[in-house]
């Protein structure tokens, strides 16, 4: 099961925190959360993955879908603090270049 916390910071950046496993079931929820954020005008999004314990291809698809819609809206989606199990999946798919992990949620949009 997964819980997805969402909040928007004072600087307008949306922070999404998936807690649990991002598999096929959870990916649908994440996709909706990201679409809602971009749809409501928040196009700069950090996904804080410190408490995401598992990621599969459907979870990756949701992240990439969010990345594309954020960029289309003039923003970006960045990921922060992935655990080793999640980093392994980014490496296996060569997506570690497209979704370069940031060490910190606060500074994820500093560069």
């Amino acid at each position, binding site marked *: *099961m997964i819980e997805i916390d969402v909040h928007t910071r004072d600087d307008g950046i949306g922070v999404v925190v998936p807690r649990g*496993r991002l*598999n*096929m*079931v959870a990916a649908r929820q994440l996709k909706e959360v990201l679409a809602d954020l971009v749809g409501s005008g928040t196009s700069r999004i950090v996904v804080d993955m410190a408490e995401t314990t*598992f990621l*599969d*291809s*459907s979870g*990756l*698809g*949701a992240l*990439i*879908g969010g*990345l*594309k819609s954020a960029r289309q809206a003039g923003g970006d989606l960045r990921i922060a603090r992935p655990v*080793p*199990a999640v980093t*392994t*999946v980014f490496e*296996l*798919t*060569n*997506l570690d*270049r*497209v979704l370069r992990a940031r060490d910190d949620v606060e500074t994820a949009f500093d560069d």
Partner: protein
Amino acid sequence: MTDGRLVLSAPAVPEVLEVVHTMLAQLWARADTWDQRDRTRFELAVIEVLGNVVEHAYAHDTESGRRFDITLVADDEHVVASLADNGLPVALDLSGVALPEDELAESGRGLALATAALDDLRYERVEGRNHWTLECRRGSAG
């Protein structure tokens, strides 16, 4: 550890993925000397193949009540998942499975990921059932 066989027979529905995650946690509790990277690549492959069974093998299936059986076995050097379902045949050439050329594709990575994560992935159609065998060897790059 010398033996740790876990067996589940369940309906092929997305919600059952959580049950299989729990089974895998039980497997690792027994096979406690396996490291994180080996655990991750095996769990990923099992969930990808099972997700494929749930999503695709049944997409064109008009009958309800589809089920699958999964057996997980670990010894000191190998972990193996055997998965069987009673869905329609899968037209698949595993040797040709690749990551999508578009790196921003939102789907199409599942079996490529499973293939990359595993040391061996086999598919057979036997007596009206799809059989998948997934194997990881300890410490291998996948």
